[in-house]
């Protein structure tokens, strides 16, 4: 897995550096100097690493860690909830769902901890720091947003 991950990173940097060098050519010298000075050597280094990773045999006995799809699904799911329902609802819904179904806690524990975390979130960020948390896209679309 280390090999694949390293190859993926090298390709990501290769693409980024290639794009940087390609676009920076059209800019004024002042703006292009630094991206070119960094991008050009980075392009070469990334190519070396990509070839090195592609040719190496370190993949044997180094499997992908098991069960990593689920945590990523929770993370992306939480992000989607925030976008759709806004922070205040998403935080409560995510906390409760995670504690109940992923951590397998009982209902009382899940509800109490959710209430505590939500209270801390609301007290600190909304009441004290007055951060603007927009209503989610879904609520706006349904016309519930203030």
């Amino acid at each position: 897995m280390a090999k694949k991950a390293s190859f993926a990173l090298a390709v990501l940097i290769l693409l980024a550096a290639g794009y940087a060098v390609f676009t920076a050519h059209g800019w004024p010298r002042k703006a292009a100097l630094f991206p070119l000075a960094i991008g050009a050597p980075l392009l070469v280094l990334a190519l070396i690493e990509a070839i090195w990773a592609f040719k190496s045999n370190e993949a044997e006995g180094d499997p992908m860690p098991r069960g990593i799809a689920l945590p990523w699904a929770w993370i992306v799911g939480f992000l989607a909830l925030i976008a759709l329902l806004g922070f205040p609802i998403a935080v409560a819904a995510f906390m409760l769902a995670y504690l109940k179904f992923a951590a397998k806690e009982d209902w009382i524990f899940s509800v109490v901890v959710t209430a505590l975390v939500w209270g801390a979130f609301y007290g600190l960020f909304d009441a004290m720091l007055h951060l603007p948390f927009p209503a989610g896209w879904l609520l706006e679309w349904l016309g519930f947003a203030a």
Partner: protein
Amino acid sequence: MLEALWEGLLLVLQWKAFGFMLLGIGLGFWVGLLPGLGGATTLALMLPFIYTMQPVEAFAFLLGMHAVVATTGDITSVLFGLPGEATSAATVVDGYAMTKKGEAGRALGAALASSLVGAIIGAVALAAAIPIVRPLVLTFGSPELFMLAIVGLAFIASLSGEGTRGMLRGFLAGGFGLLLATIGQDPQSGTARFTFDSLYLMQGLDLVPVLVGIFAIPEIIDLFVRGSSIANIPPGKVAKGAWEGVKDTFRHFGLTIRCSLIGTFIGVMPGLGGSVAQWLAYGHAAQSAKTPEERKQFGQGDVRGVLGPGAANNSKEGGSLIPTVAFGVPGSTSMAILLGGFLLLGLVPGPDMLTKHIAVTYSMVWTIVLANIITVALCFLFLDRLAGITNVKGHRLIPIILVLVFIGSYTSNSHYGDLLVTLFFGAVGYLMVLAGWPRAPFVLGLVLGKIAENYLYISTARYEAAWLTRPVVLVLIVVAVLVIAYPFFQARSRG
């Protein structure tokens, strides 16, 4: 100078700064105890909270938290044989062996007392270094500061990975960070660079969403995959014999001092970091054994094997603040994140921190000292209950950390783009962990990118190519070349 030192103390003792320091200590205390939740990650997670703070309050909070992580990390190493922090792994060797022999209290007493001695020596070194490096830093202009940034990157890139391949990855990570720092409107010409016509990207990538993503997300995945395996040893009577451990610290006081100095020295060297300091100190402690029989005791539960790493772990903090504050060249991942904190507060490390903001710098010295005294006192008071604190299930922590991750990153611009940036860099960070790439050079590149570009621009605009011939610049070029060439020499001497 003494006046500034006194002023620094008064600043930390103001009720607000002191309160934030206590809050930081509370967090650091817990994070240090819990294996699996790292000090650097927590530092990144707490960055969004400092926006509204004054510099002294912010550093009391961040540094108070960071200064105690290594201290309480030693407790987990001693009691459970798993390091609470990567930097307290060396304490496991003899500390856990002592626990198995029924000397947990003595080992803890020794770890805590040596940590305190180490922290104070590191802080004294920082205070003493300020008047020495000040005249040097004040002679530096943009060309020298630009080269220092390059030397810092070269150090971190070449030393954080092993061998040629490790160095290549270090440079790739550092270069990627530098390149990403150029995103946004160029301050000199006003050109929009790599913004993809997005208004969000015009002001550049914000540090907080990137740092939170790259450190916290991989840790969450790891915590999830490992499940609830933090520690499940019931709390017991461990306080017995702690006083004996404190006495051990003074019985071997010379060793404790020497290991503290090793830690400070390693801290000053950019790129080596705490993981190296603890093992060097352990090695030195083992060398201090006079006979082969005595040396065999190491690994079987010799108290000197606890004192050495305990002292070095904490003294390195004061040491690593010296290059961070004076030159803007952080010595470790945590210091690179702390450097991000400087920028969020509008402070530029370098000459200003040693003149205009000297009291803030001294307040950091005091924070390290006070935070450690308070922590060690608390540990001794609650020694018996400490084991119980580690009994938190990983699964209960994950949702709380995840809420902090997304709210924290969102607060930097109040824009959904922040969340996407966090997710993207979370994936990049996870790939880096899987591939064994170092993350510190990336952070340093991202943090130093804008400053380095600015220095480079001023240097070329003011001196054209002649800046390359300035004596200090030439010396720094030689240092950078030597640092880059070092792994090759190392490989050749091995081969």
